[in-house]
């Protein structure tokens, strides 16, 4: 398979680069500042694209690669891949589900705990020497607080399972009620937000879920409520979130994703009731290796004409 051209769109995993290089003809897109020139010379030999949650395969890239057969993405969410275009052109698309579910759920619980118990602020308090001047304030208990989950897919369920061990009542919103679920269903995000203390975004980003967290939802969650986003930045109307946090209309937020990554609104940097992480929900050594193995497995299956491991299109 070493004649097959594989285009990696941005750096994502040194291990994956190494494994792809040993099997295919690997092009590192970020090493070519002159994208148009590069594509003119190499487009016909590129039969696969490997993208991430931050950069995938948009319509322009797909159009410029006439030999493209498969997009094997190094992420579970495919909002950076033009799925409609892929379908039209018969291009296969795979993602990396399941292997990252646990890590994402773990970080969601971590962000809840750290936002309520102010762990980052505690750490800053100690490191800046303030403890010697007086005790740190009281914080908010997590165990027993009501948790509302938007999107009860694999990740949403894994979050629910963990939160249950903290004695938290669970409710959820999704497009349709899950009949086999024991958790309480709300038919709208507003109703869910009005009835929970902690709201977690865990659904895929689509046209319908873009800005699913808007001003009305934030106000329904209220000044004691906490928003957790481990989905995608554009799930949240970010300027509305920032102003609600600054004005105290929302109690706090734990955010792993942002609308314009790697840019994060600077107004958040001065707030103690937010916890910010640089899109690391699936970023563990163990999981990134499992994701890379899945990308390689999908590519090998495709080029040896076997069934794909995790096909989406």
């Amino acid at each position, binding site marked *: 398979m070493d004649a097959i051209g594989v285009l990696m769109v941005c*750096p994502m995993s040194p291990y994956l680069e190494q494994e792809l290089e040993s099997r295919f003809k690997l092009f590192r897109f970020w090493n070519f500042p002159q994208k148009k020139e590069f594509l003119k010379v190499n487009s016909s030999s590129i039969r696969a694209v490997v993208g991430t949650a931050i950069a995938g395969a948009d319509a322009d890239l797909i159009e410029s690669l006439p030999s493209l057969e498969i997009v094997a993405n190094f992420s579970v969410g495919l909002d950076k891949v033009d799925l409609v275009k892929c379908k039209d052109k018969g291009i296969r698309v795979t993602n990396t589900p399941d292997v990252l579910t*646990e*890590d994402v759920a*773990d*970080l969601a*619980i*971590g*962000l809840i*705990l*750290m936002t309520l*118990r102010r*762990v*980052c602020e*505690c*750490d800053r*308090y*100690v*490191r800046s020497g303030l*403890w*010697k001047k007086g*005790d*740190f*304030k*009281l*914080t*908010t*208990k*997590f*165990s*027993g607080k009501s948790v509302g989950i938007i999107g009860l897919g694999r990740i949403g369920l894994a979050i629910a*399972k*963990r939160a*249950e*061990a*903290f*004695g938290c009542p669970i409710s959820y919103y999704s497009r349709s009620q899950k009949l086999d679920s024991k958790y309480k269903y709300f038919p709208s995000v507003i109703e869910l937000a009005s009835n929970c203390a902690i709201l977690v975004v865990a659904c895929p980003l689509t046209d319908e879920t873009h800005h699913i967290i808007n001003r009305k939802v934030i106000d329904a969650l209220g000044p004691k409520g906490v928003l957790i986003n481990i989905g995608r930045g554009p799930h949240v109307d970010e300027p509305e979130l920032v102003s609600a946090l600054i004005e105290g209309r929302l109690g706090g937020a734990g955010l792993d994703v942002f609308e314009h*990554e*790697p*840019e*994060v609104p*600077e107004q958040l*940097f001065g707030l103690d009731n937010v*916890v*910010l*992480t*640089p899109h*690391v929900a699936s*970023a*563990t*050594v*163990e*999981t*990134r290796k499992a994701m890379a193995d899945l990308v390689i497995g999908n590519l090998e299956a495709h080029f040896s004409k076997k069934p794909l491991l995790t096909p989406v299109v």
Partner: protein
Amino acid sequence: MASEAQSSAPDNLPLVLIHRIPPFELSFKSWLPTRFRLLDPLDPSFSSPQTQSLVSSVRLLLCLGPSPLTSDILDRFPSVQCVVGSSAGLDHVDLATCCRRGITVTNAGDAFSADAADFAVALLIDVLRRVSAGDRFIRAGSWPAKGQYPLGSKLGGKRVGIIGLGSIGSMIAKRLEPFGCIIAYNSRRKKPNVSFPHYENVMDLATNSDALILCCALTNETHHMINKDVMTALGKEGVIINVGRGALIDEKELVRFLVKGDIGGAGLDVYEEEPEVPRELFELDNVVLSPHRAVATPEAFVALQEVVIANIEAFFANKPLPSQIELE
């Protein structure tokens, strides 16, 4: 019986001797019921002959927070039969003297357990997933400049050794199971009805763990139980979480191990010389530091007040005390 003397007549209210260090006030007067008569040595009227005559017969002492209760102090109150504590750990109380005098002692019971367990889990996730360091990375504006942030470590599959499987330790185990952590524990005795593997000694537990969580009582036996040998056994990738007491760990050794990279990381809520924290730790990204706040939520303090009042009432009613601790 003494209860004869405790009729509801205002002058005969049950006597509660308050023991506190000046800064630790806990606004106790606002929540202790008026059906007890409080005797506070920090009150100017305490030395009056009238109050002193009451002190000579007081049977119950309420110890607020971590106020040291030494044998000297206890000797001043020979009639005390019960010490009601208001913390989970009672390393500030001279328990040997209590034992010798037959004084019953109570602690905070379960009031703080859920919060302490939550905080231990938070510290573990924080250290393994590098959350606080990630937050610093973003606030410093480093994300656009540096791009990729170093990978963390997965919770699932990690072997977590819990030292002290009491109320807090059990709640930590319960919370970590759905994360896919493999739980084992060390305690003085193997617990009946607990299926997690029990290790007789901490060395063996450390050898077989990826992370150790300390939530046992500080006693002469557990002082510096986490020493050089235990940290060596835990290994270069190992993580230590402490929500117990600072002196459970040989802190100088811990700092040395962390600075040299001989253990993987630490999440610490308690220290040997609070509020002093070793400055060498301030530079490390694999360490999360918290100012002894694992149990500090309003909910926990309300629960604590209920436990304290329940113990006082049970004592004066000659009923079993809800959170009496075992003295050895």
